[in-house]
C-alpha cells in the first residue's frame, strides 16, 4: 500500500474517486479497518479511510429512524439508541476480535457493507432489512441517493438492499439511514443440555415454528466455550409476556434434556459470544461462515465432519473451523446455501475463492451489475481470478 487517503468531507471523497478513476487506480476502502482480511484479498495501491466522515446527523426515536455518516463508530450509534431505549433489530455483531483488531471498533458503513447480522437475524431480519436509504459515490465519482427515510417505500429500485453485503465493491456510502426499534423491556434465556446436533436443531426449529416468538436459536456442540452441548433459546419482550413464554418453553423442552436459566449477565455474554463468533477468536485454523437452509444445518455439519463448529439462526448459520476447504463447499452446495472463507491466512485466501463461486450466468450478471456502479473496477479490486 502506497498511501492512505483520509477525506474529511463528501466533496473531498468525490474528488479522490474522480482522480482515482482518471488514473485507473484501485482503492482499498475501509472505516476503522476492524475486519481486515474479510472478503477477497484486495490488490490496490491506495487505501481510502472513511473514518473522518462520521457523526449521527439526525435521530428521531418516535419515527424509528436514524441518519448518520457512514464512518460513524458503531459505539456512538448504539449509545445514542440506548439513551432512548431503542436498538438495531438485526443485532450487529462486532467481529473485530475475530480479525485480531482492537475490540469495540467498527463503523456503521462497515456493518452495512458486510450485511453483518447477529442472532436476532432469524426473527427480525438482517442489516439489509433495516437499511432504508443512503447517499453514496459511484466509481465515476458521482454522488447519488437511493431509498428514503421511511420504511414503506417502493419508489425506484431498492438499492440499499444491493449495497448491503456488497463489501464496498459497488459504491462508497457517505450517509446511511437506518430503521431503529424499541429495545425489549425484558429478556430470558433457556439452555437445554446434552442434545445431539440433530435433535438440537430439530427442537430449535420446532420452537421457531410455534407461537413463542424466539429471538435467539443457537446450538453449541460439546467443547464450544469449554462446556458440554448447549442448545440456547432467547425470548424478548414485555416482562409478563417473557414470563409466560419462558414457562411454556420450559415445559416443552423438559422432555429433551436438563433445562436451566442463566442469569441476565451470563446470558448476555453468551449471546454476545454467539453473535461475534467469539469462541473462535484465538484459533489459528481457517474460519468458515456457512449459510444453509436451517433444516439442512445438522446434515451439512455432519458431512463436513469438523471438530469445532456451532450453529446460530436455528441451524441456518454455521461457524466452523476447518482446513479442508473442498469438503466444505461440497457439503454445502447441494443445499443451495453457500460458504464464505471468513478468516484465513493470506496465502489461503489467495488460492481459494473467499465467497462461494457462482454459476456462470449469475457470475456474469454480477459482473455487469458491478460495472454499472464501478465501471473501471477501482473499488476494492480483488487479486485477479478471485
Amino acid at each position, binding site marked *: 500500500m502506497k498511501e492512505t*487517503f483520509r477525506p474529511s468531507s463528501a466533496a473531498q471523497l468525490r474528488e479522490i474517486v474522480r482522480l482515482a478513476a482518471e488514473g485507473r487506480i484501485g482503492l482499498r476502502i475501509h472505516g476503522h479497518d476492524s475486519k481486515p482480511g474479510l472478503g477477497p484479498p484486495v490488490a490496490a495501491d491506495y487505501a481510502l479511510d472513511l473514518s473522518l466522515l462520521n457523526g449521527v446527523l439526525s435521530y428521531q426515536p418516535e419515527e424509528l429512524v436514524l441518519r448518520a455518516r457512514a464512518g460513524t463508530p458503531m459505539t456512538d450509534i448504539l449509545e445514542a439508541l440506548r439513551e432512548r431505549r431503542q436498538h438495531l433489530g438485526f443485532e450487529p455483531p462486532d467481529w473485530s476480535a475475530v480479525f485480531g483488531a482492537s475490540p469495540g471498533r467498527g463503523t456503521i458503513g462497515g456493518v452495512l457493507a458486510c450485511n453483518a447480522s447477529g442472532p436476532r*437475524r432469524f426473527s427480525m*431480519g438482517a442489516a439489509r432489512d433495516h437499511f432504508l436509504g443512503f447517499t453514496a459515490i459511484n466509481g465515476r465519482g458521482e454522488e447519488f441517493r437511493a431509498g428514503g427515510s*421511511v420504511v*414503506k417505500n417502493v419508489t425506484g429500485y431498492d438499492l440499499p*438492499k444491493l449495497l448491503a453485503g456488497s463489501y464496498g465493491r459497488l459504491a462508497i456510502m457517505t450517509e446511511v439511514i437506518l430503521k431503529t426499534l424499541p429495545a425489549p423491556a425484558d429478556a430470558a434465556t433457556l439452555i437445554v443440555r446434552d442434545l445431539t446436533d440433530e435433535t438440537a436443531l430439530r427442537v430449535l426449529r420446532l420452537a421457531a415454528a410455534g407461537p413463542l416468538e424466539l429471538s435467539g436459536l443457537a446450538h453449541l456442540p460439546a467443547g464450544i466455550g469449554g462446556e458440554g452441548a448447549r442448545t440456547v433459546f432467547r425470548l424478548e419482550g414485555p416482562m409478563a409476556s417473557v414470563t409466560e413464554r419462558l414457562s411454556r418453553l420450559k415445559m416443552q423442552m423438559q422432555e429433551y434434556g436438563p433445562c436451566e436459566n442463566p442469569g441476565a449477565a451470563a446470558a448476555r455474554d453468551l449471546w454476545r459470544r454467539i453473535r461475534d463468533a467469539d469462541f473462535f477468536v484465538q484459533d489459528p485454523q481457517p474460519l468458515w461462515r456457512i449459510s444453509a*437452509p*436451517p433444516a439442512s444445518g445438522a446434515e451439512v455439519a455432519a458431512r463436513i465432519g469438523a471438530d469445532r463448529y456451532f450453529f446460530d439462526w436455528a441451524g441456518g448459520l454455521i461457524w466452523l473451523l476447518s482446513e479442508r476447504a473442498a469438503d466444505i463447499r461440497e457439503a454445502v452446495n447441494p443445499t443451495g*446455501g453457500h460458504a464464505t472463507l471468513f478468516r484465513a491466512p493470506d496465502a489461503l485466501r489467495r488460492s481459494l475463492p473467499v465467497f462461494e463461486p457462482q454459476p456462470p450466468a449469475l457470475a456474469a450478471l454480477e459482473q455487469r451489475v458491478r460495472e454499472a*456502479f464501478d465501471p473501471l473496477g477501482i473499488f476494492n479490486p480483488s487479486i485477479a481470478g478471485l
Partner: protein
Amino acid sequence: MHCLKYGLTTNNLLGLELALMNGEVIRLGGRHLDAGGLDLLGAVTGSEGLLGVVTEVTVRILPKPETAKALLLGFDSIEDAGDCVARIIGEGVIPGGMEMMDRLAIKAAEDFCGAGYPRDAEALLIVEVDGVAAEVAGLTRKLRSIAGACRVRTVSESRDEAERLAFWTGRKNAFPAMGRIAPDYYCMDGTIPRGRLPEVLARIRGFSEQYGLPAANVFHAGDGNLHPLILYDANVPGELEKAERFGEDILRLCVEVGGVLTGEHGVGVEKRDLMPVMFSEQDLNQQQRLKCAFDPEGRLNPGKMFPTLHRCAELGRMHVHQGQTRFPHLPRF
C-alpha cells in the same frame, strides 16, 4: 397492514427464479437466509418487471399469533390521533397493525358495512396487538392508558375473534365504500414520516377546497403510508384532470415533508414523471444503469418508472482522461 411488525414483501422473500432477457434462467437466494454474492434478490424485489421475469418464488412463513385483539379509538381531532400514534411507538409498542381513518372515510365505511365505528369522530384509530395471552393483555392495558393521555373520546375493545374481524371490515371495505358516495375515486399512495400527519392532512384539506373535490383519508399509521381517496365524477368534463392534479400535489407534498412517492403500489407509468421530484438526474441515471445490467436493450416494461429513457450505451460512457496528478492537494494519513 401488518408490516410495521412483520416486515414488507421484500423482508419475507427468500428466493426467486428469474428469467433474464438474454434467455438465461438464474436462481437468487433459496431456502437459506442470506445472499451468497450481491443481494440481487433485494434489487429485483419491487423492480416492477423491469429487470427480469420472475418464474418461481420462495417465501418465508411465520407462525400465526395465538391471540390478537383490536381496539377502536375515536378522537376529536386528527392531531390527537396523530399524537397517540407517536406516543404508542414512543412507549416502545410495535402493534401488529395500526390504521387511521378520517371523518369522511369513517362515515362512508360505517354507512357501507356498519362495523361499529363512532360516526361523530374526526379520526379513528384501529390498533391491533397480537402474541401470547399475557402480552396481548399487557399491551391492551398500555394502549388504553396512552390513548387516555391523548384525549381519546371513545374506546372499544374486541371481545372475541368475530368482533376483532368486524372491527377490520370497515377499514378493509373503505375503498368500495367510496363507491356509494361518489361515482369515481382516485386512490393515492405515498409515505410520510408519521409525525407530519396532521400537517399533511390539513394541507390535503386545502387542496380539496382548491380543486373543489372531496378527499377521504385512510392511513397505515404504523408505517406512515397514506392513502387519500380523491372523489370525483369522470362524467363531468375536467374532473378527471382535476383529480389527477390534486393527486400530484399530494405526492409532491409527501416528498416535501421527507416522505416518498409510493409506499406500496409502485411507480409504473402514473408516477413516472414525478420521479425527478424525489431523485436527481444522477440518482436516476444510476438506477437506469442497474436496468442496463439486466436488460441492455430495454425490452422489459419499456416506459415504466423512468421519466427520461437513456440508451444504455450513452449511460455507460465515461468521460475521463488519463490523470497526470498524484493528488498533491488531498489529505493523507
